[in-house]
């Protein structure tokens, strides 16, 4: 029998706010253990939560970014369970009236995933085992956490990964999170089940909890889909359970979960008043949203930019905005895309260029492309100018001047360089006369070396031909 995979994801994003969700402790990763704690986030007797307006706003913005309906009234609930990392014995979360409902996300490769809800809650502390004992760092306790729950619309591990990446991308566009995977500020739980292709059968699902890497998610789901298919093929039954991903072994293993068959006894949080979110406020936040990745991708593709370049430009908001600014300054979109995903991306990877705080301003990229197009700079010179702009800032004109990279157009001057190159490389010149075309590019290269790339390659070539008398 052929199976299809049904996957739903719960993505957790720690919001990047100055202070925690319900107290004024700093929300900061990496501080010494238990240095950002107070009676509230430590759950001391008598302490009460006071909601962080900035976190609520960030949550609304993210929900809007996911295309959700924003409830006019939102409310917090208590989720009750015992665990040493949970200071109050309950987590302040949202059950019936979450901030956002019914959103959707468009995946880069096409396809739409429905979002059922976006809820705001508080993170727990971090339980660690060291030297045979368990210790808890409560710095993370009370950090605002957004839970984004998808419908089971994902049909493959690859799609699940693409969805998670897109959620993270949207959050980064909105600036609501640092989204540092290695710090666990973005985590996901996945539900996966199989059903005979083309049916709507509801089969037991397996939950894989607390993954903090895209690669783990994809591998875990791939393994799990195979495992479940194998069970069905041998006419067994898949147990509805929580499993964990054991990455070194590459398998999922049953987990004795802290939440196994738990009744969370949710009820409305009496310490917090329901929150009224006015239409006007929500509309203002919606209007102020930046252009989001899916819109970016659509616009870039419509401009005729190649798919891979579209993906790279839309990947980060600063890069997309850099592109926009360069085009606004007169750059041809296709050329701008080529340079941003080519030379500038290479400089970014080398750490020489920071697109979120660019020294090489987008208007200068536009100017650079104009000079290349008009012939004032050669490609090679333009790369040198760009490298210099990226490091030092300034204008194309001044930089080209200072580096002496203004194109050498004087035929006599270029002819002198060509003659010198031929003289120094008699053997190559002879080879060329003998019809060995390889020697031509060598000689052109020598002219370029002598002129530091200031000569247009075509001009060098034609003068070389003249000089050796072809």
């Amino acid at each position, binding site marked *: 029998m052929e199976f299809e995979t049904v996957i739903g994801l719960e993505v957790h994003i720690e919001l990047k706010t100055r202070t925690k969700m319900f107290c004024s402790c700093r929300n900061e990763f990496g501080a010494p253990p238990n240095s950002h704690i107070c009676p509230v986030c430590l759950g001391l007797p*008598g302490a009460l939560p006071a909601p962080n307006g900035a976190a609520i706003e960030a949550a609304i913005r993210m929900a809007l970014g996911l295309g959700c309906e924003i409830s006019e009234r939102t409310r917090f609930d208590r989720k009750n369970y015992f665990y*040493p990392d949970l200071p109050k014995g309950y987590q302040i979360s949202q059950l019936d009236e979450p901030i956002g409902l019914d959103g959707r996300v468009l995946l880069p490769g096409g396809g739409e995933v429905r979002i059922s809800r976006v809820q705001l809650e508080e993170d727990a502390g971090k339980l660690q085992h060291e030297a045979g004992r368990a210790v*808890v760092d409560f710095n993370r306790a009370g950090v605002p956490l957004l839970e984004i729950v998808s419908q089971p619309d994902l049909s493959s591990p690859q799609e699940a990964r693409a969805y998670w990446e897109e959620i993270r991308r949207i959050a980064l566009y909105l600036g609501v999170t640092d989204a540092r995977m290695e710090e666990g500020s973005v985590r996901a739980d996945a539900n996966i089940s199989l059903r005979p292709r083309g049916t709507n059968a509801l089969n037991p699902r397996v939950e894989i909890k607390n993954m903090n890497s895209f690669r783990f998610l994809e591998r875990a789901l791939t393994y799990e889909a195979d495992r479940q298919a194998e069970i069905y093929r041998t006419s067994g039954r898949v147990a509805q359970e929580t499993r964990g991903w054991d990455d070194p072994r590459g398998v999922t293993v049953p987990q004795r979960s802290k939440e196994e068959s738990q009744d969370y006894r949710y*009820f409305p949080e009496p*310490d917090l008043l329901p929150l009224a979110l006015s239409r006007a406020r929500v509309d203002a936040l919606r209007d102020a949203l930046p252009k989001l990745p899916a819109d970016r991708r659509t616009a870039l593709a419509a401009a005729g930019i190649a798919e891979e370049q579209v993906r790279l430009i839309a990947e980060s908001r600063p890069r997309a905005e850099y592109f926009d600014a360069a085009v606004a300054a007169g750059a041809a979109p296709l050329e701008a895309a080529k340079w941003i995903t080519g030379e500038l991306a290479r400089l970014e990877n080398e750490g020489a260029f920071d697109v979120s705080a660019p020294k090489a301003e987008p208007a200068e990229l536009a100017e650079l492309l104009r000079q290349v197009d008009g012939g004032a700079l050669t490609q090679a010179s333009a790369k040198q100018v760009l490298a210099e702009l990226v490091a030092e800032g300034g204008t194309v004109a001044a930089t080209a001047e200072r580096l002496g990279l203004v194109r050498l157009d004087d035929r006599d001057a270029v002819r002198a360089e060509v003659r010198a190159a031929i003289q120094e490389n008699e053997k190559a010149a002879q080879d060329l006369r003998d019809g060995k075309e390889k020697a031509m590019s060598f000689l052109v290269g020598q002219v370029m070396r002598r002129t530091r790339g200031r000569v247009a390659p075509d001009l060098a070539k034609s003068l070389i031909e003249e000089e050796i008398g072809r």
Partner: protein
Amino acid sequence: METLRDAASRLRRAEATSGSLVEAAFSAIEAREADLHSFLTLLPDAREAAEELDRARPEGAGPLYGIPYAAKDNLMTEGVRTTAASRILAEYVPPYSATAIERLTAQGALLLGKTNLDEFAMGSSTEHSAFGPSRNPIDPTRVPGGSSGGSAVAVAAGFTHYALGSETGGSVRQPAAFCGCVGLKPSYGRVSRYGLIAFASSLDQIGTLTRDVRDAAVVLAAIAGRDAHDQTSVQDAVPDYLGAISLGAKGLRFGVPQEYIGEGVAPAIRDEVLRAADLLEAQGLTRRDVRLPHTPYALDAYYIIAPAEASSNLARFDGMRYGPRAEGDDLLESYKSSRGEGFGAEVKRRILLGTYVLSAGYYDTYYLRAQRLRALLRQEFSAAFADVDVLLTPTTPTTAFEIGARVDDPLAMYMADALTIPANLAGLCAISVPGRPSEGLPVGLQLMAAPMREDVLLRAAAALEEVVR
């Protein structure tokens, strides 16, 4: 017995010092505390603190400056052991103070000690204290009421001029009634709950025990008002309560709802309420008929909502971050032992009850229905307060009962709060004022007013106090 205001004027006229007030308090305590057991902790450095206050006394010091007071031991006091009368917090020393305590401290009030209560404020007699019951100063064979029993005893026995207590279902008014002092429960949201160990968050409120109504006005003014630490504290400005009282009560409308003087209320208490009603009418207050037919359901709703919230609020006492931790073979065993050994029977009973009513499958039947009832009660009160300014009722169905009489009969114990609970459910302000004693035991007369109308409540209460005397 001397009022807080009289003590303040003695201090102003330099006829007394904070030091002499503390000495007087300690000798009164010396004489009777062994019998009454009102305090769980006395501050050893109160004398030095008094001397310091005397030295630093500013011009125009406020009415609380330099005067010792007692606080119920479920209010956080920085550096001073705070137990909630529970073994699980027996050695707990908090690193911060409740907002109400901070506000008193800022006005020069002097904390003398922390008073006894029913464990986590769950009870009506202080017999559920892990550290032994308090006794009624009028008749030490009887309970002082609860849960703020220790605070009522401290005020009634002459130890301190006033004390802070807390209410969830009558825990200030009921002991005030039993001990013969004034017990004020402000409207929900009037006083910040920050630093009050939560019992039932939607019902809890800090209240005052004083020797007369005007003192209640003075202390309330000192602790009331918005606190950014408590989102449920209201923004409304705090009125001038003494100024309101000085307007007199003439022209105020009041009602005596039949539902509060029916079956189960001792005849002598009912008679005292009716006598008080006649006296108020004679003073120029207008009497109107009011009906509150849902009153009998209040107790049922309360014993679902309060335990539900308590079961969650008390989850933090797990032996992990503070309090004794019983080691177990695994985490679950450690939780079970820590909580099993740390909590007393009444607290466990309410945690079980609350856990049950919130459980999947029972939530709608119990918790949601109770909340609907609560909404009905609110509406009913709201309608009543369109016709009258205050409601006059007994505070308790009976006078103080004997120690041990109800401790093994939870339902009988719960009945002691039947007449006070509705005000908590509806977020009203309410006060208990001593009436004429019955067979030598104090009788409490209760007045209730609409939320945030402490000004009206106190006007009526001052008049009531005057006429029944």
